[in-house]
């Protein structure tokens, strides 16, 4: 399987402001690719150039082998888009929106998607009267109704409650399993870490780091957090020194160690507890998350 999305040296200027500054990446067919970044980092502009909504200032783009700049009509049948800031007419109902947009795609209305996304009861309710979550679900249903090869989701879970979010995640995984390539722009690091095969973190219009969530988190300078609770609190003294531990402090009943190499650290802690006639009640290891890495890049600008 080849690349479903190819971006080479994409640049986008708004007047003198550089929104996207020469970014390049590829997304393989059937992958979920996460675009992360703070507000104004260039995520939405990048997506909108790929979706044919913005003309790039420079660079080349291919989506499903189609150039969004020169072949916008062909692009419509290949892509599905849930925009971050898009609306539907206030008076339109989900049933009407599905009927109209499917008709423009020359397919029968996909009312099964309204059912799947919990909108059957609201099929005849006007868009303005839907909750924010229901509006997002309707926009998603419309985006996938024509079985696009490439799906762009911009903050898809924004405003969704927990069950709706879980259902959306299930749907996204099903789409990937069916071979749909998905580009997901999100602020939600847990979501990106959970769903994305690869992510790119944008900063000031450039890619600060790109790779799988595991690769990116392993590249960080963040420490692994080891929290230990013992029966007699033998670890509750500040003078302890364990291998690879950079910092030690107390959080309620837990002694917390920030370790750059957890193997020697955990081994030494267990040995110490045994040697002091104490016993473990709880031991937790928390690896640096994508969010930790994101915050590090966003605040320091450090990337790979």
């Amino acid at each position: 399987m080849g690349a479903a999305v190819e971006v080479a040296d994409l640049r986008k200027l708004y007047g003198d402001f550089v929104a996207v500054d020469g970014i390049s990446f590829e997304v393989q067919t059937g992958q979920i690719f996460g675009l992360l970044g703070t507000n104004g980092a260039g995520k939405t502009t990048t997506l909108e150039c790929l979706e044919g909504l913005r003309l790039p200032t420079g660079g080349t783009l291919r989506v499903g082998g189609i150039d969004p700049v020169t072949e916008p009509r062909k692009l419509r049948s290949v892509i599905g888009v849930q925009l971050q800031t898009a609306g539907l007419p206030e008076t339109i109902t989900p049933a009407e929106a599905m009927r109209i947009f499917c008709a423009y795609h020359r397919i029968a209305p996909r009312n099964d998607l309204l059912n799947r996304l919990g909108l059957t009861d609201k099929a005849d309710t006007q868009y303005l009267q839907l909750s924010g979550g229901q509006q997002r679900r309707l926009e998603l249903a419309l985006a996938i109704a024509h079985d696009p090869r490439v799906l762009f989701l911009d903050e898809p879970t924004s405003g969704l409650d927990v069950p709706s979010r879980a259902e959306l995640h299930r749907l996204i995984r099903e789409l990937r399993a069916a071979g749909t390539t998905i580009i997901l722009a999100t602020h939600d690091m847990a979501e990106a870490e959970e769903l994305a095969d690869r992510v790119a973190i944008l900063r000031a219009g450039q890619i600060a780091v790109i790779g799988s969530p595991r690769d990116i988190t392993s590249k960080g300078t963040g420490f692994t957090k080891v929290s230990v609770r013992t029966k007699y609190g033998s670890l509750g003294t500040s003078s302890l020194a364990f291998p690879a531990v950079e910092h030690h402090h107390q959080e309620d009943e837990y002694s917390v160690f920030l370790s750059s190499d957890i193997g020697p650290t955990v081994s030494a802690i267990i040995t110490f507890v045994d040697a002091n006639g104490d016993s473990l009640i709880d031991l937790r290891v928390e690896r640096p998350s994508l969010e930790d890495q994101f915050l590090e890049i966003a605040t320091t600008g450090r990337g790979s």
Partner: protein
Amino acid sequence: MNAFAAHFAFEFRTGVRNKTLLLLNYLFPLGLYLMLGFILPGLNPFFQEVIIPGMVVIAVMAAYLLGLPEPLVGAREKGIFRSYKINGVPPSSILSIPSLTTGVHTVIVAAVITATAPILFDAPVPVNWFGFLVTLVAIMVATAGIAVVIGVASSNSRVVILWSQAVFIPSMLLGGIMVPYEDLTPGVARASQLLPATHAMNAFRGLAMGEAADFAPWVSIMSLLACGAVGFGLALFLFRWDSHDTVRRGHPALGFLVLAPLALTLLF
């Protein structure tokens, strides 16, 4: 159901569901019709003669000039056009379908006015129904063309109101509805030929009501139809999907060209 039919059905229902459009399509013109019909003939006998064509022209202008441009600007500002673009809805449908559905609402109102005015206000009825229909279609086409140009060329909702009223109010006052064309001073009369209402009233008088037209009525019909055609052409040319789109195909001031066919009648 094909895309055009599905989109048309939705837009038609919007004309009734949306309270503002319901007001402008039905309540405002019919309310004004009743109010003016009961009050004005006693003060201005001329109005008695033109109740049917005059109120039909007012209904057309209210629905198109006051009702059509603002939803176009609002849809662009709210990102609705972006959703349309993503899903393959072409600009021609975005502009033409609301124009057509507004036309249906307007025809209903025109029918109510035409059917009731002779009974309620002893208004003279058209003597040539073909001429009446041709003139009705011509003023609808012209006003729709002007309305879509205002909607596409205006940068925001406040500007829309300004331009819509700039056509609507002079049309009411100088378009041959409140004051006969021949009573206008020569300068004002010539200026009024830039208004679609003037040509519609001229054509109604000459082609439908069995009266003498002030100037060639078929020239008025042709200029109204040309105004509509130019308007739709300009609107398609100036159309933008996005309020923040910095790429424009032409300056919005090109929109004034929609009045060129009406201005050309000054040569005849």
